[in-house]
């Protein structure tokens, strides 16, 4: 991490170790005295919360794996055995299954924080890119984990998602056969998914390490989006943020426990308690909630062809796949789409509003993904005759327009108010104003 000097330790054993391998110095520099902006709000808790979730998933996953059998003949039964016979198996499984959901809750909020406060901007571009990479790896891990219990949703979810790759021209079918290790989702598929489900979380640990390393090179951003200039702008990480993070983690764990103990199957799908049957598709396949917006983008795409002819350039299937992966790929290049020098939405009158619409569009996409492909929007029990498909199309268009049109345009034309001279002064001004933020002085560029 940073090139800070070695610390002094009174304990001779610690000092002896530290001279040879400066682990303790590193901990002290990076988590003890590490200067951190003094104006974090609660959005800054979710990185630590995500870290706790990652550790929880690995700990529970390891013990589940000791009782799980990755074989199509045994998998479903072995999970039921975990639920009924293994000591505390039910708890470990519910903690793991709901933990995946909570991990995504934390990461979605964490990503929103980054978008809203412009954390992805120079000099934190690589930090942001590593974060998007973690998000992708998490999605792959969760998808393969959901296949393991080998229920109906496991099987059909795996079938539908792996079949996406058949949309790739020419080699698509070969890729799908290669992914399956056969001619359908079957034992070889389950086996390799288990291997990857076991492996990828440790890859995530590696990328998280680099993510935090990069964070400690640039230092944290903050709600004002202006860099720390003097010592007055910061507080040491410990005890200030160890306490605040600890508090946030506890509140989050209470929320998590409500699901684990009182609604353990609410976020899952009842069909996954029916053993996988390759001969019968359930009437309505839905992925886990955290994939719904992307699933909606997948289904929203129409055939793309030359107007007024029957010539189709990109089939809706391929267009859907491109849209789905594109919606995440676009996050990688966001630091270069948004050239506005102002980070925080607090000082961005247009971007902050666009972010609200963006969140609404994303949630609407999630609702569209939850509903059957041909369903209409019903409000207060009444059919509005508005197909979800069209809502999904509009929302998906907005999703892409946000990044490809609005963000670059705002960077050019949005008015830029004067930024506070320093974090310290902004915090004091807010305090003197009775806790209300001081409206930034409007100033045209």
């Amino acid at each position: 991490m940073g090139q800070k000097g070695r610390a002094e330790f009174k304990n001779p054993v610690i000092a002896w170790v530290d001279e040879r391998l400066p682990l303790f110095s590193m901990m002290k520099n990076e988590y003890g005295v590490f200067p951190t902006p003094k104006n974090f709000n609660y959005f800054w808790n979710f990185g630590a919360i995500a870290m706790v979730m990652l550790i929880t998933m690995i700990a529970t996953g390891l013990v589940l794996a000791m009782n799980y059998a990755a074989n199509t003949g045994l998998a479903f039964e072995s999970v039921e055995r975990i639920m009924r016979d293994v000591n505390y198996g039910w708890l470990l499984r519910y903690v793991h299954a709901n933990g995946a959901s909570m991990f995504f809750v934390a990461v979605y909020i964490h990503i929103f924080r980054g978008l809203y406060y412009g954390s992805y901007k120079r000099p934190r571009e690589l930090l942001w890119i590593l974060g998007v990479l973690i998000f992708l790896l998490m999605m792959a891990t969760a998808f393969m984990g959901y296949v393991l219990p080998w229920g109906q949703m496991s099987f059909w979810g795996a079938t539908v998602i792996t079949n996406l790759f058949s949309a790739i021209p020419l080699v698509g079918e070969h890729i799908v056969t290669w992914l399956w290790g056969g001619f359908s989702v079957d034992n070889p598929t389950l086996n390799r998914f288990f291997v990857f489900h076991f492996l990828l979380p440790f890859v995530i640990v590696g990328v998280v390490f680099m993510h935090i390393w990069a964070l400690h090179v640039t230092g944290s951003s903050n709600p004002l989006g202006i860099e720390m200039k003097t010592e007055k702008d910061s507080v040491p990480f410990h005890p200030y943020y160890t306490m605040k993070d600890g508090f946030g983690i506890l509140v989050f764990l209470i929320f998590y426990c409500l699901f684990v103990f009182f609604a353990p199957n609410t976020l899952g799908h009842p069909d996954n308690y029916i053993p996988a049957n390759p001969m019968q598709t359930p009437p309505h396949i839905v992925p886990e909630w955290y994939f719904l917006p992307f699933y909606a983008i997948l289904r929203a795409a129409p055939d793309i062809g030359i107007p007024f002819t029957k010539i189709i350039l990109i089939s809706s299937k391929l267009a859907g796949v491109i849209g789905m992966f594109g919606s995440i790929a676009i996050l990688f290049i966001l630091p270069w789409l948004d050239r506005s020098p102002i980070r925080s939405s607090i000082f961005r009158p247009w971007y902050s509003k666009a972010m609200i619409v963006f969140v609404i569009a994303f949630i609407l996409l999630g609702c569209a993904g939850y509903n059957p492909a041909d369903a209409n929007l019903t409000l207060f029990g009444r059919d509005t005759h508005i197909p979800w498909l069209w809502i999904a199309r509009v929302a998906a268009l907005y999703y892409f327009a946000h990044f490809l049109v609005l963000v670059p345009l705002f960077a050019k034309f949005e008015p830029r108010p004067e930024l506070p001279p320093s974090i310290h002064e902004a915090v004091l001004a807010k305090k003197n104003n009775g806790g209300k933020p001081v409206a930034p002085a409007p100033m045209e560029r």
Partner: protein
Amino acid sequence: MDDDQLIQKELLPNEQSPTEPTRRDFLYLTAAAFGAVGVGSVAWPFIHSLNPAADTLALSTTEVNIGAVEPGQAITITWRGKPVFIRRRTPKEIDEAAQVKLDELRDPQADKDRVQKPEWLILVGVCTHLGCVPLGQKSSDPRGDYDGWFCPCHGSHYDTSGRVRKGPAPKNLAVPTYKFLSESKVLIG
């Protein structure tokens, strides 16, 4: 050769002209090419091990007795882990399938090219969109707007020849390779 000369010759070989390729460039290129071939040939066993194994490939034929299937009925059997639909079509269904004009179809194919005996329609029961099993095998199932099959996942409709007529599926239901062993026996695969 003293040290200075050696340095001249070995470390600054491009003295003559920076654009002209040297023996050293050639060595770099061949080394890189051999390296790439080496990496590729080591990677291939790893990649190929994920492809279907010999025993998976060996399961690739299934013999079916179709003696008991009446006209209008259908059966579903398993072939390579996938459902295969065998429908004994009624004269009306055969007629419907034959009447369709090819330019109405998304994936144009004549009915006669999709069957060996018009009475027996044999298809892989996997939707060409994203792989669900379409409904329409049981008499109580919805059969879609074209009297064939209906895929519940994203709403694709197939006709009495298993050709896609509506919905997101890009292709017709696939016809597996098969041969009639006798009047009442067919070998799939």
